[in-house]
Each structure stands twice: as structure tokens, then as C-alpha cells.
């Protein structure tokens, strides 16, 4: 896979033509903002979870981007752990949605407000 990087015999640490980190972070930030918008706006829990996935993914992008910047593997490792956590969270979350659905309650996050007060 390093073929993409093997454009010429560049040594580690040399700058090469490519995309600066700032742009990657910009994309990450944009995705984060979109996800935020979704979380604050959506009433269907399913759609809410999708927006949360966006947030998680934007974080992953940042991690990997910085990992490349510092030239370490740690960011990748972290990103993988985030993915595991995301998976676990989706399992539980969807389980909740199903449970709510089975109780014949409205799938409306605004109506799930029994923690009020």
C-alpha cells in the first residue's frame, strides 16, 4: 500500500506533495458539525444514532490524520478502539430502540422524557 507514497525515493520526514493536515481536519470538523446538527435536530432515535455515527467517524479521521502528522501508530490504534466502542454502542442503542418499539411507545426522543424533573 505504500505504493501511493513511493513517488520517488523520498526519505521519511521529507515533505512531499500532498494534502496538508489542516484540510483533513477541516473535513473532520465539517463532519463533526454535521453530526452535531443531526443530534440536536433529529427526533427519530434511529436517525439520531446515524448522526452520532457521523460524530464518531469525524473523530476517527482526526485521529488518523494526526497519527500521520506525528508519524506514529498510536492514532490508528485509538481509531480501532473507537470503532469497537461504536459497535458496542450501536448494539445497545438499537436494542433500546427495539425495546421501546415493542412497548408500543412512540419512537420520538422528545417523548422519552421520563427523566424530566
Amino acid at each position: 500500500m505504500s505504493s501511493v507514497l513511493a513517488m520517488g525515493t523520498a526519505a521519511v520526514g521529507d515533505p512531499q506533495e500532498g494534502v496538508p493536515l489542516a484540510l483533513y481536519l477541516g473535513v473532520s470538523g465539517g463532519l463533526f458539525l454535521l453530526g452535531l446538527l443531526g443530534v440536536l435536530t433529529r427526533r427519530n432515535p434511529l436517525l439520531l444514532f446515524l448522526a452520532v455515527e457521523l460524530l464518531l467517524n469525524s473523530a476517527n479521521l482526526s485521529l488518523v490524520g494526526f497519527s500521520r502528522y506525528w508519524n506514529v501508530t498510536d492514532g490508528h490504534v485509538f481509531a480501532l478502539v473507537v470503532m469497537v466502542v461504536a459497535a458496542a454502542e450501536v448494539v445497545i442503542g438499537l436494542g433500546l430502540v427495539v425495546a421501546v418499539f415493542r412497548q408500543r411507545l412512540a419512537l420520538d426522543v422528545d417523548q422519552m422524557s421520563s427523566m424530566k424533573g
Partner: protein
Amino acid sequence: MISVLAWLVLGLPLLGCVILSLWPGEPDRRVTRVLGVGMPAVSFVLTAIIFATFLGRDADDRLEITTLWNWVQSDGLSIDLSLQIDTLSVMMMLVITGVGSLIVLYSTEYMEHDRDYRRFFAEMGFFLFAMLLLVEAANFFFLIVGWGLVGLASYLLIGFYYDRPPAVAAAKKAFVVNVVGDVGMVLAAFLLVRELGTLDYGEVFQTAPEGLGMDTGVATAVALLLFVGAAAKSAQIPLHTWLPDAMEGPTPVSALIHAATMVTAGVYMIVRCNVLYQLAPVAGDVVAVVGAATLLMAATIALVQVDIKRVLAWSTVSQIGYMIMGAGLGVYDGAMFHFLTHAFFKALLFLAVGIAIHALAGEQSLDRMGGLRRHLRLTHVAVLVGCLAIAGIPPFSGFFSKDEILATALDAGSLGVACAIVGLIGAGLTAFYMFRLFFRAFWGSEPEGGYPHAPHNPGWAMSLPVVILSIGAATAGFLQVPGGWQLITDWLEPTILADPGLEPTSAAQWFVSIVSVSLAVVAIALAWWVFAADPQRRLRLAAAATGPRAVLADQYRFDEVYEEVLIQPGRDLGDALTNGVERYAVQGTVEGVVRGFLDMGRGLRAAQTGLVRSYVFAMIAGLVAVGVIFSLAMR
């Protein structure tokens, strides 16, 4: 040995009380009787032993002070738990334990039908302990302790029938009035500590002439404040209102506490503090005047009372007035002599009248009595003896003691003369109202319709004390015969440290004797004429004098005045404070705090919307804020 005996005398009645109180369940009546009567009786025997021991000693040697331990030791004041056994205290102890034992014996039969048998004897034991502490105390501190405990005992015993509202009210009244007296005593004690630095009798009486000075403001203040206490306890004007109401208690209680012993505590105290009263002649005069006024006023009220016990109650107030008057003038031996004879004949009268009340199943009104001499022969004789004694007819005891006071008073300056005259008038009134009681209850015809139950004669437990007291009332006068011997004066001499040296002249004695006996005989004849000769005469005369009779029947409206001037304003103040301060300041503050917290909680709850998005938004808002702060800080 006397020390041990002194503590036993004091402690045995208390022990009886404690055992009876802590006995699980209701003890067998025999147990109660043994403890209730046995303890005082043993105390009497021990007191008699102390007395006999003293008799075997020289006059100057009749003093024992015994200390258990040091009670208070502070900078400048040391108080010991000690007893002082001298001739004065022994005299009081003999009466307390002796008459007390007789009365408790009497109660075993009188209280037979009461279900609170045990409580009665426990409370009587407690009273005896408290009274003994009062008279045996060696310092003002324990005098006041005994004083207060006696007041408590009185409260408990007056309110013995606690489910009767009048009894409860009477008990409260007695206690509250006595608290006024207690305040006076305590203030006097404060002054003594400040001026003399001690409360011990010996030290106080020795240093008082120096420390307080003669006729100074402090000396007078101490004496007057002590007298406030005496006036409350001995029911003198204006603190007398509680004694007539105290008749709500059982008759034995009236006999013991409100005739023979507790109410005489004031007299005892004044005699004990003769040094202080000699240093404050003004106070002594005040005491004498109050005694004289009370004597007269009470005698007039007794003339129209219908409740038989109330007659005796007002009679007690009047007779104590004699003692107080005598003590105020400096006739200490006369006052104590009259105390002794009064204990006999007043206790006798209460117990004998109690037999009548018991026989009539609780009837106490003279209107519904009459002709009892046909049914209760022994009682009839006993009451006669008592009435003759109190009226001052020789050779009965009252004659000797009362005239002792009056004759000696004539030697005590112009105030003394005035008091003696008042006393003579009072003697006449006394004879009249006592024989009014006698004739109305025992002579004449039975009330209309006869008696619902046939009056029955009492058993030995009630008769024996009455007999013994009759003998005492009849003969005790011979302890001090003018022109013969003066056993009382000699006996008390060691304790009267500041004797004013009043001596009745023989002319004075003859004068007083003749006048008092004449007045008494005239009064008795008058009473016979009004009450016994013609049954209707008293009603005709009563109808003619309704105005004065009403005033007397209302007891000169003292209670009403107190209600108006003291009690109602007190209630109003309480109401005002409740509505003003309590409701707004105290409760308002507390409620305000609570409401404040509740409101705060309610306000904070607004953030708990239960909506996910609001929580997320809150987080974001925080994040934004942090970010802004950071970026500004970094600049």
C-alpha cells in the same frame, strides 16, 4: 452518733418513697402501709433519741453539724452537704416526724378506697424527706433546696386527684405562687454570697453584724427578700391565695402540709435567721405588720366560709399570721411555742373533720351537716378539744402559746402594742368562727332528709392519731407556764443568737389572759346564740348582712385582682408573642428557609427537561464557552 441518726432520719422517708415508687406493679397494701408508716415512725423514734441525747447535755453543747461531702467548691464560695442539728431543728424534726407519722397512720384507713394508694404514701414520704432537709440543712443552699422540694411535694399532693380540674388548677397555683417566694429567697442568697461570701449558717450569723451592718440597706434587703419566701410558703398577704385552694388535696395532706408543717417553714426560717432580722429592724416591723394584717383578714374571711375545710384553711392562715407577727416582733420563743401547739390542734382538727367527711362519704359543706354528735361521739369530743385549744381557753394549749406571743408583744414598743390589740381582736374572731363550725356541724339538727348513708365511726387507724393529738392539744400548753417555768424558751435559747430580750411583764400577762379569755368566752356564747340556740337565727342575720358577707365570701377579691392585673396581661403577652414573634419571626424564618430551598430546587429542576437534545446542547454550549475562554487566554 447523732450525725448518723440525723442522716437516717432524713433518709428513711426518702428510702420509703423510692422503694414504693420503683416497686414493679402495684405492691400489696400491707407493704405500702409498712413502708409508708414505718419509715416516718422510725424517723420519729430516732429523732426522739437525738432529743433525749440533747437533754442529757448542757445547753451550750446541743449542737451537731455533720457533713457528707463538699457539694460546691468554687472561687469564693464553698457549700457542703451538711446538716445542722440544734435545738431549733430538733424541735421541728420532732413535730414533723411525730405528727407526720400519726397522719400517715391515719391515712392508711382514710385513703383505703383510693386506687392510687401507693402513690400517696410515696409522695408523703418524699414530702417528709424534703421538709426534714429544709429544717436540718446547715446552710442557706440546702434550705432553699428543701424549700423547693417541699413546694414540689405540695404540688404533687394537692394535685393528687389529678383528673379533677380544680385540683390541678390549685396545684399549679400553689406552685406558681411559691416560685415567687423562691425567687425572693434566691435573691437573698445572692446578696449573702456577695456581702459575706458564704451561705453556711454559722459563718453567716457570725459575720453578718460586721458584713451587713446594722440597719443598712443590704441587711434590710436580705431580710425582706427572705421574708418574701416566707410569705409565699406560709401563705401571708399577698401571697396567701394558694392555701384555701390547696384544700383540693386529700384531708391528710391538708393536715400535714398545710397546717402542721410546710406552711410553718416560713416561721422556722425567720426564727432561724433571727440574727439577720435583728440587724434589720425595718424588715422585722414589715414582717410583724404583714402577720398582723393577715391574721385579721383571714379571721374575717373564715366567718362566712361554707366548706368546712376552707374554714380550717383560713384559720391556718390566721394562726400563722400570729406566728409571723410574733417572729417579726422578736418573740421567737412565742412564735415557736405557738407553732408547736398549732401543729397539735390544727392537725387534730383536720383529722377529726376528716373523719366526719369520710363518714359522710365526701360531704364537705356545712350546709349539709348537722347533729353529728349523735353519730360520731369520739370525733365530736376531739373537735371540741381542738376548738377550745384554738380559741385560747385555758387550760388548753392554744391559750398558753397565743397569750405568750401577745403578752411579750406588749413589751416590743408601740408597734408591739398595736399588734397585740390586733391579736386580741383576732382571738375573739377565731373563737367565734371555730365554734360556728363546731355548732353547725355537730349540734343542731340533721340536714333535711337525713344523711344518705349513716355516718359510721372510724377504725383504730384513724381514731388513735386523733386521740393522741387531742392529748397533745390539751396538754402541750403546760410546756411554758407564765410565772412558772419556760421550757420552750430555755430549749431554744442556744439557737436564738440575737435575742432582743423581750420579757412580758406579769401585768401584761394578766391583762392579755383576761382579755383574751373574756373575748373568747363571749365569742363562744355568741356563736351558740347564733348557730345552736335557734336554727333559723343565723339565716335571718345572714340575710341582714348580705353586703359584707359577699365581700368576705369572695375572700376580698384577691384572686380576681391578681387575675386582672397579673394573669390576664401575662396571657395577652403570650398571645401577642405567639402571633407576632413566633408566627412571623421564628416560624416565618424557618418556613422561609424551607421555601427558599424548595424554590431553588424547583428552579434548578428546569434544567432537567428529560430531552436528549437539550442535554447535548448544554454540553455543546459548555464546550463553546470553554473554547472561547481558552482562545482568549491563549492570545
